[in-house]
């Protein structure tokens, strides 16, 4: 299969005129980060505009968490530079404008939820109202609970509250919904919509293309420390293909199959053909019409990990 990067310009917001650069929420410039022999982030460049909701998408080990950790100044790049609203990542000026939910971000043990929020609130110059944050993070009724006696979901909501309370211009979320059930996830993204409606910027990482599709207006796909695709969720989905149709055929040749409506690419292994689709329903109808010899047809979702690997292989080739 071949991968065609999204057309330049139209939906690649990283290409901004030079005079707008100072306005960038995030500017990552040729950043590299190694852990011993492992190249976690490989010459990464990325610009995020204020008001964007950007999903950093990729399989485990793609470099998402390392990138986020450097954006927050928790770890320093081996090469390259990172700026947040024009200030060096991790500098006092940058910290004042950034809120973050970390995967391993613990909360102060032994204090009450309300006490913790009130304390963190005093660290910021223009924080949100205490009650507003309690409401948005759905912590009402938990304020007298000890931080170390919260359930997993409650802890996650507290992390969100702590990230939000300073009213940050940029919110960075490392796999925020990893431990959430479907209902909580929906509530979470609803709360985030309210946040972006005020012109705030969100950068979040996720494994789930579906989630990026729902919540983000830009998806940056990473694999092996590099950006392998960058565009709107629709553009990414179109180029990856979300489902695969497999069938057996007695005729050789797959020419023309990738041109079927809804199909992205076709590959053949023996007499078995694999048709990757972004609209498997249309593709299936067209397939049956054009290839009556197709039999043993199955339709399945593809693992995103496979898609990443395919894409990176395509890029490397």
């Amino acid at each position, binding site marked *: 299969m071949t991968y065609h990067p999204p057309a330049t310009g139209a939906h690649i917001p990283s290409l901004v005129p030079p005079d707008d650069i100072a306005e960038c929420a995030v500017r990552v410039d040729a950043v590299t980060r190694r852990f011993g022999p492992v190249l976690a982030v490989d010459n990464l460049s990325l610009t995020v505009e204020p008001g964007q909701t950007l999903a950093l998408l990729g399989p485990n080990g793609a470099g998402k968490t390392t990138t986020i950790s450097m954006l*927050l100044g*928790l*770890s*320093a790049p081996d090469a390259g530079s990172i700026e947040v609203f024009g200030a060096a990542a991790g500098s*006092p000026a940058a*910290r*004042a404008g*950034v*809120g*973050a939910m*970390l995967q*391993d*971000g*613990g*909360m*102060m*043990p*032994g*204090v009450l939820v309300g*006490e*913790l929020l*009130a*304390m*963190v609130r*005093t*660290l*910021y*110059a223009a924080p949100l109202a205490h009650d507003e944050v309690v409401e948005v993070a759905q912590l009402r009724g938990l304020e007298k609970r000890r931080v170390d006696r919260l359930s997993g979901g409650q802890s996650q909501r507290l*992390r969100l509250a*702590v990230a939000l309370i*300073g009213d940050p211009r940029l919110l960075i979320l490392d796999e925020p919904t990893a431990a959430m059930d479907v209902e909580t996830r929906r509530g979470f993204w609803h709360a985030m919509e309210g946040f972006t409606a005020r012109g705030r910027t969100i950068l979040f990482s996720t494994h789930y293309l579906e989630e990026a599709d729902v919540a983000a207006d830009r998806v940056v796909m990473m694999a092996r420390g590099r950006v392998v695709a960058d565009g709107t969720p629709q553009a990414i989905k179109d180029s990856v293909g979300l489902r695969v149709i497999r069938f057996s055929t007695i005729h050789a040749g797959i020419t023309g199959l990738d041109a079927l409506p809804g199909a992205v690419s076709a590959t053949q292994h023996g007499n078995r053909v694999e048709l990757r689709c972004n609209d498997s329903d249309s593709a299936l109808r067209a397939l049956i019409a054009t290839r009556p010899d197709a039999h043993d047809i199955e339709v399945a979702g593809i693992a995103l990990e496979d898609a990443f690997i395919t894409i990176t292989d395509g890029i490397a080739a």
Partner: protein
Amino acid sequence: MIKYLALEIRRSLRDRRYLLLVAGWPVAAYLLFSTVFGAAADRSEGLPPTVAIMVAMASFGAMGGVLMASGPRLAMDRQMGWLRQLRLTPLSPARILAARLVAAMALSLPAIVLTFVTAALVKGVSLPIWEWPMLVLLIAAGCLPFAAIGIVVGTIADGDGAQGLTMVLYLVLAALGGLWMPVQILPSPLQTVARTLPSYHLAQLGWHIARGVAPALGDGLVLLAWFAGAALLAVAVSRRLTLRTA
């Protein structure tokens, strides 16, 4: 930063096991020792045993309160990821460290005050009125090196390790520093070691006040030197750790 400091202190005071250990232990030890040795003649400190032991146990409890509030708690916060989260706020690392030092120092007070109250009420210890606040202040201030030592422990050791290391340090410093028994009964090489320890000089500060004389400058200087050494070490190890885990 004031709010953070206040919350650090509050969470320690809420921890019953901690309070029992750092305030209950010295009070119980005071009652035991002052009852057993109370009838003895004046000790080498030149003080009645009930007073000498009161100062020793207040110092012992103060040192424990400070060591436990700084080391194991820092290790736990690191392990839980709270320190990481806190580093994302505008609070600077220097302020975080300063707040933790001050909070740990403040936790010398419960043991000092409880031991004094017990001594006054149960053993009828009476001192000139100005000596009480002087004692409280000097013993609390003299705990500065222990707060810094705790930061070192909390940086190099994790959770249970920090707890254990703190306990060992606590007991060694107390026993060798002459808080449980006069250093004169130790073998002479150990006496030499004892006289270099911060715990020894902390007790000396208190005993001077209780005798009604000015505290010796030397004791203060040794404590300051311990603080400076531990603080430098704390900065060095935290640098090294940041580089390694970053």
